[in-house]
């Protein structure tokens, strides 16, 4: 073969080959490590079941009451009981509402009528976030979304709650 016909020089060929083989080896080495590191992002989040929160339906009033219950949480290799809370009441249509107390602004905990100046509202003490009784955020206060709603079910006259899910925006 003549020198002129060579479109890829010997040096270039070696460079490409070495880069290719080296890159392949490096990728083979790093791929499992990176896959392991990003595993939490790719894992499907477990969907919790419903838990009996020890509240009889007949005890639910139109006044929101705070209820606390425990769920079993599996955190990697660590299992523990953690507490959850909800504000539960019956709305004007006699439907049970169970709101997450986690403020949609920055995650503080809201209370029903938590501030004397704002009756009939949920109030977050961190940045004066407010929500109407329906859970809708009061316009002009820090929260940008209504309070999350717990999945719920009534079995044998008892209230069962699951995970809190954001409600669909209209």
């Amino acid at each position: 073969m003549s020198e002129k016909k060579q479109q890829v020089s010997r040096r270039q060929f070696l460079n490409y080959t070495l880069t290719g083989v080296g890159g392949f080896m490096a990728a083979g080495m790093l791929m499992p490590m990176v896959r392991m590191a990003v595993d939490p992002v790719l894992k499907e989040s477990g969907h919790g079941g419903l838990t009996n929160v020890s509240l009889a339906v007949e005890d639910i009033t139109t006044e929101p009451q705070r209820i606390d219950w425990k769920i079993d949480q599996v955190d990697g290799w660590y299992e523990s009981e953690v507490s959850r809370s909800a504000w539960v009441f019956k709305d004007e249509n006699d439907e049970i509402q169970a709101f997450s107390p986690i403020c949609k602004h920055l995650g503080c905990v809201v209370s029903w009528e938590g501030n004397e100046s704002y009756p009939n509202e949920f109030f977050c003490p961190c940045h004066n976030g407010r929500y109407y009784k329906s859970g809708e955020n009061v316009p002009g206060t820090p929260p940008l979304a209504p309070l999350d709603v717990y999945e719920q079910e009534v079995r044998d006259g008892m209230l069962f709650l699951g995970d809190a899910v954001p409600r669909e925006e209209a």
Partner: protein
Amino acid sequence: MLQKIYDWIDDRIDITPIWRDIADHEVPEHVNPAHHFSAFVYCFGGLTFFVVVIQILSGMFLTMYYVPDIENAWKSVYYLQTEVAHGQIVRGMHHWGASVVIVMLLLHTLRVFFQGAYKKPRELNWIVGVLIFFIMLGLGFTGYLLPWDNKAFFATQVGLEIAEQVPFIGTQLKTLLSGDPSIVGAQTLTRFFAIHVFFLPAALFGLMAAHFILIRRQGISGPL
């Protein structure tokens, strides 16, 4: 694109001489397996370094899941092995790599010994190499305890009693390693973890730097 980024940086801080110093050097004929196949024995040092790089990387990633605590160490390793994608592979790399490092180190040492490459003026580099060997043994010893299973526990118990046999300071040395005069437990595990991931690697990096600077300065020994 890459060339442009490189030129932009090189234009300002002149990095070409730096990497030339690191990467661009003559490989003598007697060291090149393309000329004499038996020259593959010169690869063992580089292979040791390669496996050390694997150990460092896989170890860094393993600490994302591992907890050095007697309640959780075994559970976190079990979780990593069974629940995390590719966790078994990464721990496997670290586990087997630990043995392969020792094998490569020994082969490298044998080559240097039988070729007499340690002789004047390279005695200092031989000493640095022996120190690296001790560091590696220390890494193996401290890493063995970390999964906190029965094998790890009893192997460390034996290892600590070996340390106790050292004349005069044996008892103190054992306590220093285990963090408690009689218990192999919570304090031993955290200590071994700290030694395994901070102290010994720091010493290893220093010694490896010295090893490589010396070989570059003195050049590789001549043909037999």
